Each structure stands twice: as structure tokens, then as C-alpha cells.
């Protein structure tokens, strides 16, 4: 409806309070599952495996009681980008030798293999976006921080900055909606003074061009905000992770371990499809 509600389309990084099984899962288990699934998804060339994973993520979205229309919003915002990536992929990494040629025009040839590649690329991004959104919908920022910190804690002995890293991740996540709000304010200020905002949608290119004058002031405010944040942290004697105790105490239950192991197994299968592609057997069955 309104062109100014940038936040409405930024669904990644938004936490939706809830009390579902997915919400209550230990953040460490969720982080492991997320990393494992994402690794699996980017390695597998199999459409069947990707569809199955997409189904799994959708089932989890349903279990978490996240409205599908809301979950799909992030996908919708990324749709032009997805199509572009698929197109580039099709044209720059041709697989003309796979399957019959479907379409030929000038120097462009599209074979069944190319089309399959495009669909695989889109499916991959779908799972990535939905998976990441599901994680952020069901995990509060506090839990994300503690999860990351705990997972990297073993590495701290060799000088790995686990606490600092988790802090950086959390601040980055927190800044996404803040930047969206800031962009909204700037767009409104410019529109009030004659800029061409909020007058119908226009094509993606004119829309993108309209965003350009927002970028520089947006960076300026982001930097200013970061400076204020740093000052506020210093004012409260922030010294990093050393000797700090925590309000949130993570306690893993058997079901958290099971979830992490299951997702690791699933990811293992996904990676395995790089060698043994089930699509071929499925095709021969049909």
C-alpha cells in the first residue's frame, strides 16, 4: 500500500514473539541447524533434494505458527534479484549439452539443462531466504548473541574473539530494521519537498534510482548512530566478555541435541547429492 513502509518488506532480522516448539528450541541447536542446512543447500545440485528441504522449512514455518504470507514477504522483495541471478546464471554458465534445446535466438541458446539450472538457483535462494527468516522470526536477539558466543567459546582458547564476534553479528542484525526506519524518514522528508516518492510504483529501475539520493544521508546517520552506540557502551563500562555473567543461561535438552543432529544428518545427505544425484534415478523412474 504505502511506498514508505520499507520495514514491511524487511522481514529478515525481525523477531516475532511466540511460544512454539521452534521458538523454544535452544538457539545453539537452531544455529547449528541453520548453518548445516545452508551449507547443504548451496552444495546440492539436486532439484529433488532442494524441494524436499524447501518442504521441510515450510513445515517448520507452519509449526512455528508464522503466517505464510508474512514469511513470503521477504521472498517477494527479493524476487527481481532472484530472477536476475537465475538469468545471469543461465547465460554465463551454459549447460547446452544437457537435454534438448528448448529455445534458440541469435546467439542465445537455452537447453533443458539451462532451465533446470535456473530453477535450481531460484529454489536454492528460496530455501536460504525462508530458512534465515524462520531463524530470525523465532530467535530473539539476546538468544542469538548467547548462541553464537557459546558455539565459538571453545575457540576462545586460541585467541578467537567469540564474544566480540557475536556482538558484531547482533549489532548488524539490529541495524537492519533501524536503517529501514531511517530510510523511511528520509524518503518522507524528500517526498514532502517534491521528490518523486509515493506516486505509484513505476518500474524497478526508476524505483531503484529514486533510492539513490537516500544512500549518502543514510550512511551518515548509520555512522552517527554507531558512534552514539559506542559511546553508550563505554558509558556503561563495557569491556567485552571477560568475567561477565549472563542473565540468560542456556541449557540444552535432549530434544535440542536431537534437532541439531537431525539437521546435520539432513545436511550430510544434501552434500552427498553432489556425488549421487537422486534426480537421475527419479527421472528414470518416470
Amino acid at each position, binding site marked *: 500500500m504505502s511506498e514508505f513502509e520499507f*520495514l514491511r518488506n524487511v522481514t529478515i532480522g525481525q523477531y516475532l514473539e511466540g511460544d512454539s516448539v521452534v521458538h523454544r528450541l535452544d538457539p545453539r541447536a537452531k544455529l547449528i541447524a541453520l548453518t548445516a542446512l545452508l551449507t547443504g543447500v548451496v552444495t546440492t545440485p539436486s532439484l529433488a533434494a532442494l524441494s524436499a528441504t524447501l518442504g521441510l522449512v515450510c513445515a517448520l514455518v507452519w509449526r512455528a505458527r508464522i503466517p505464510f504470507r508474512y514469511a513470503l*514477504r521477504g521472498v517477494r522483495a527479493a524476487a527481481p534479484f532472484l530472477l536476475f541471478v537465475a538469468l545471469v546464471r543461465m547465460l554465463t554458465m551454459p549447460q547446452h549439452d544437457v537435454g534438448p534445446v528448448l529455445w534458440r535466438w541469435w546467439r542465445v541458446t537455452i537447453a533443458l539443462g539451462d532451465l533446470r539450472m535456473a530453477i535450481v538457483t531460484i529454489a536454492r535462494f528460496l530455501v536460504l531466504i525462508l530458512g534465515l527468516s524462520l531463524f530470525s522470526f523465532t530467535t530473539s536477539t539476546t538468544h542469538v548473541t548467547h548462541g553464537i558466543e557459546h558455539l565459538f567459546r571453545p575457540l576462545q582458547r586460541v585467541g578467537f574473539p567469540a564474544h566480540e564476534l557475536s556482538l558484531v553479528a547482533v549489532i548488524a542484525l539490529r541495524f537492519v530494521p533501524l536503517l529501514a526506519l531511517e530510510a523511511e524518514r*528520509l524518503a518522507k*522528508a524528500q517526498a514532502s*519537498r517534491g521528490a518523486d516518492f509515493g506516486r505509484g510504483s513505476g518500474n524497478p529501475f526508476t524505483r531503484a534510482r529514486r533510492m539513490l539520493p537516500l544512500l549518502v544521508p543514510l550512511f551518515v546517520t548509520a555512522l552517527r548512530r554507531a558512534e552514539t552506540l559506542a559511546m553508550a557502551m563505554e558509558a556503561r563500562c563495557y569491556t567485552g566478555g571477560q568475567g561477565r555473567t549472563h542473565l540468560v543461561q542456556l541449557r540444552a535438552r535432549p530434544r535440542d541435541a536431537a534437532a541439531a543432529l537431525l539437521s546435520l544428518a539432513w545436511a550430510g545427505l544434501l552434500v552427498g547429492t553432489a556425488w549421487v544425484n537422486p534426480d537421475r534415478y527419479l527421472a528414470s523412474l518416470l
Partner: protein
Amino acid sequence: MPSSSGVTSMPIIEVRGIHHTYMAGTPLAQEALRGVTLSIERGEIVAIIGSTGSGKSTLLQHMNGLLLAQRGEVWIFGQRVGDRNTDLREVRQRVGLVLQRPEDQVFEQYVGDDVAYGPRLGGLSRPELRERVRWAMEQVGLDFEAYRDRLTPSLSGGERRRVALAGVLAMQPLVLLLDEPTAGLDPAAHLELLHRLLELRAQGITIVFATHDMDDVARLAGRIYVLHEGQVVLSGSKREVFVHRAELERIGLDVPFAARLTDALRTRGMQLCDALTLDEAEQAILEALHERATA
């Protein structure tokens, strides 16, 4: 003291039963306006008061076509906002909006460029543009020669706020909407802004401002709309509205200091007439004392 008398009876802005929900269709949906109706007439100063989150900002943004009503209608200068043939750019030029914390909305690098942003998009020639910027900066008390090449980040908050106001005035709007214009100003800058607004009204500009400073309302406004949880709960002249002290306090608002003062004196047995500004209170107290002396 400005009042709503001498106003022609043709509303220039009419808001009819508008509803607005932020993040509509998401689990985070938030209802901001629930059926607001009001009208603004030419040449008046109208205050929209309400506690934080009552929908003031959302309402103001509907009145210059930044937000489009999800339900209900907004008519501005006889044109319905959201109609195909209503030019939103024209609407926003006629109805200038100074958003909350205007100092954060200065986005150009140089003061002169920022003030020129609106009229330049409006297609003015260079000499015209220069004159317009000079005029707008003078309206807010910024010296053109001294300030036009100053870097905006180097200005103080108060100066940046003036630049933002100049940027809106440079569009030569007929109506000026201000969202909490005096919040966070020091007393001198506060007073000066009030005087500027009165001057602008004297030039024929209609002013609508949202605030929770009741003393500003008493000093400036002719009429008041009280917003609570997205609905108009009280409206009328300031005398009509400030009579409802208990009601206002219940929704987290207040009455002007002078009204509280005269109330307090009355409970101590002084016979006083109503007062909303300090000048009126002084007058009322002097009269009461005079009467007591002659009695």
C-alpha cells in the same frame, strides 16, 4: 492573540473517517488511526494534541499525501488524495510538512542546497531560485550570505531545525503542518519559533501543529483536536477543550500552566475568571485583587 474569528467557512483540508494500520497484513500490525474526522479552514491555527502514540504524526502525514488513507477520505483544496488525477506533488507543495525532529531531515551537504531542494525540483530558474532561498532563509532568521555555504553537519541542532523549516517554506506552501516543532528547543529558540509561526500566520499561511506542550497550544492555537488511541476524543476552541481538565489528565495530557494556576488559586478561595496564558492569568489576578481591595 490569534483566534478563529474572521475565517471563511470553506475547509481547505477535510479528513473524513480515516483509518490507518502500520505493517498491515503482518503479525506486527499496529492500528494508528481509527476513524478520524476533522477539517481545517483557511487562515486558522489548529493544534492536534495527544500523548505519545495517539496517532498525531500519522494523521499529519495523511494531510499532505505522504500516507494514503486505507479507509476514509482526505480532501485537500477540493481534491481527493489518492484519486488518479490528484497530483500528489502539487498537494505536497501546497501543504508543507515539517516532520518530527526536523534537524535529522536535512540531507544535503550545504545549507543553501538543502533549502533549494524543493523549489529546484519545482523547476525555478537560477536567479529565481536564489531569491527564493534567500527569502526562505530570512523567514527563519538565517542570514543568507553567512549561512548558505555552511556545511549542514557543522550546524547546531537549533540551526539545523531552522534550515529544515526554511526548506519547507521555500516551497511557498499555503498550509504548514508541523510535528512537535518546539520539542527539545531551548527557551529562547522556543519563543522565537512561536513568534515565527505567528508571523507566518499573519502572512496568510494556515498552520496545523501537533504537540504535547499545552502552553504552546494556549499561546498559538485557535482550535484544538484531542487525539487518543487513534480517535478524536475532544475538539473545539481552546476554551471549550481546556475546560475538560479531568478528561485530559485521564488520557495523559494536561492543561496550560496558567489554567492550573488559576485553578489552584480558586481552591484557595480567590474569585477568578478563566485564564489560559500567563498574560491572561496576570490580568485575572490583578482584577481579583483590585476587586478585593475595593470591596
